[in-house]
């Protein structure tokens, strides 16, 4: 039986879709059978982030309205074995799907897949309710900004009231240099405020924009810091114990050399 994980945040633009794409691809690369479900009806984007936008025939609304069979709507990613996408409808709105239909869909997908990763829309309205309806677990994405953390807090409260226990936190777009000089909230600050367990920290990385340009998730890029962070998160989702990575690798030449020779930076 597969597990349904919803990726949510409350605030828009913090990296839900990128996170969904990278976690999903990471799990597939690790040999799991994965389906990504885009529930952002009317504003679908997971297809372009995954580079699968030209292959859409049917979508989520077609499936719940039974215009097509589930199998017909699933897009197989030819680059990674065992990775599928169920795209959102672009010309409908969030009320086209009901929570009961999502629960039914998730139950059906559980039979086929190890992991069902749901990309949740921003906001706390119908789209959010649909996205979390069938979920077993939730991952809350935030960035180290007041607005994003505030919205994450609200989402954590709503997940709790929907009986989705133990949500896990991803802090995205962390800039180690800014944290160091006291101009960005640290991971500890954010965890302290939100009071939920951390599952990963993703550094702010130009490679994410480059990989999104190309439609190739950064998780498969060995040179990308964010890619490494997503690989770690993937392992933690599968139950492995992986330590948090050191974000300070973008320092100057000296500290790089020191690290090379095994001298701990001060």
């Amino acid at each position, binding site marked *: 039986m597969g597990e349904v994980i919803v990726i949510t945040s409350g605030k828009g633009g913090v990296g839900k879709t990128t996170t969904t794409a990278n976690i999903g691809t990471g799990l597939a690369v690790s040999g799991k059978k994965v389906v990504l479900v885009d529930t952002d009806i009317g504003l679908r984007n997971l297809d372009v982030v995954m580079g699968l936008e030209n292959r859409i025939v049917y979508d989520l609304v077609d499936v719940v309205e039974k215009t097509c069979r589930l199998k017909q709507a699933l897009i197989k990613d030819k680059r990674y074995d065992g990775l599928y996408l169920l795209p959102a409808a672009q010309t409908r709105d969030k009320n086209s799907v009901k929570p009961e239909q999502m629960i039914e869909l998730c139950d059906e997908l559980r039979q086929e897949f190890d992991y069902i990763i749901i990309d949740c829309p921003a906001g706390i309205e119908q789209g959010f309710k649909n996205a979390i309806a069938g979920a077993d677990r939730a991952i809350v994405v935030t960035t180290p900004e007041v607005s994003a953390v505030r919205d994450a807090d609200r989402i954590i409260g709503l997940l709790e009231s929907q009986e989705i226990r133990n949500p896990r936190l991803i802090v995205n777009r962390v800039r180690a240099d800014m944290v160091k000089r006291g*101009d960005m909230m640290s991971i500890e600050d954010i965890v302290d405020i939100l009071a939920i367990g951390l599952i990963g920290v993703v550094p702010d990385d130009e490679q994410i924009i480059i990989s999104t340009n190309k439609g190739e998730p950064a998780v498969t890029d060995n040179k990308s810091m964010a890619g490494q962070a997503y690989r770690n998160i993937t392992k933690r989702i599968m139950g492995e114990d992986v330590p948090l990575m050191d974000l300070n690798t973008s320092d100057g030449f000296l500290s790089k050399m020191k690290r090379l020779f095994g001298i701990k930076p001060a």
Partner: protein
Amino acid sequence: MIDLFKLLLGKKESSKDVAKERLKLVLIHDRSNVSPQFLEMVKSEIIKVIQNYMEIDEDSLDIQLTRTSSEDGERVVPALVANIPIKGMKNAGR
């Protein structure tokens, strides 16, 4: 220790501390799901009771609705945290 250094050097509060402080305040209201009037009512009732027994500093009294990890660490639970500075004890009640 770092705080002490900052104090000695007279350094300004960093912007992340400002962010954290502002967040904490805004979350009190977000989390409580109750009106500020409700909290004011609770506050004045608490003051009334305590004042029967001790003198308190009403201006710096601070009552917040917040969240904390439950004892088993498995869940997040709401908590009412009150910080009530006491100026002195009263003789009443003896």
